């Protein structure tokens, strides 16, 4: 596991860390929102943890796939990426179904964190001051 992590490209590590940080911060905000609206219970915490871990893990897996694909021929790289995307979508489907079926997870707390990486990318130019 440690060796696997060491082999990850520095750029992929950096971006995954950024996405994981944003997901963590937004998860805290989500918990706060549930607390303020008096809907908070342990299912929200568990659901949020599951959703956030899936979102961050999905991004890391995508990064690792991209890293592997870049060393291949164009056609092979394209096929690898398509396969990876389908498998990762299946993984997310499994997680969301778990969130719906198991009563220990709040469904909204599972689904909402899956969109946190998108929000992180959206606010990235604001944070890094790009595009000036």
């Amino acid at each position, binding site marked *: 596991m440690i060796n696997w992590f060491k082999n990850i490209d520095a750029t992929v590590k950096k971006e995954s860390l950024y996405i994981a940080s944003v997901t963590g911060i937004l998860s805290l905000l989500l918990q706060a929102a549930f607390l303020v609206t008096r809907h908070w219970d342990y299912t929200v915490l568990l659901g949020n943890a599951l959703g956030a871990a899936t979102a961050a893990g999905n991004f890391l897996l995508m*990064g690792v796939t991209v890293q592997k694909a870049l060393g291949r*021929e164009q056609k092979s790289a394209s096929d690898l990426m398509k396969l990876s995307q389908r498998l*990762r979508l299946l993984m*997310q489907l499994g997680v969301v179904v778990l969130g719906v079926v198991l009563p220990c997870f709040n469904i909204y707390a599972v689904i909402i964190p899956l969109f946190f990486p*998108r929000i992180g990318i959206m606010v990235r130019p604001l944070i890094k001051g790009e595009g000036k």
Partner: protein
Amino acid sequence: MLELAIGIILGCCALGAGAAMIAGIGPGIGEGNAVAAACEAIGRQPESKSDVTSTMLMGCAVAETTGLYALVIAILLIFVAPRIFVSILMETIGR
């Protein structure tokens, strides 16, 4: 008659969920094309690998959100919508 109506509701929800998941195919094709183009770009300018990888990762994550929207719609159609539609039906017929 009521069973038929409920069956139609469930069938339509399942069909809708299946149709929504067609959108899950698009991001895979898009990401594949992006990575293929990135391979070509890095082949031409190997020194820009870090920048290309970073930009492409962000682009792929954005593209993947489309598939996620479809996934969420499908899940809602399977697990949430039938209950709502059946309760609306029951209210309409007064049961």
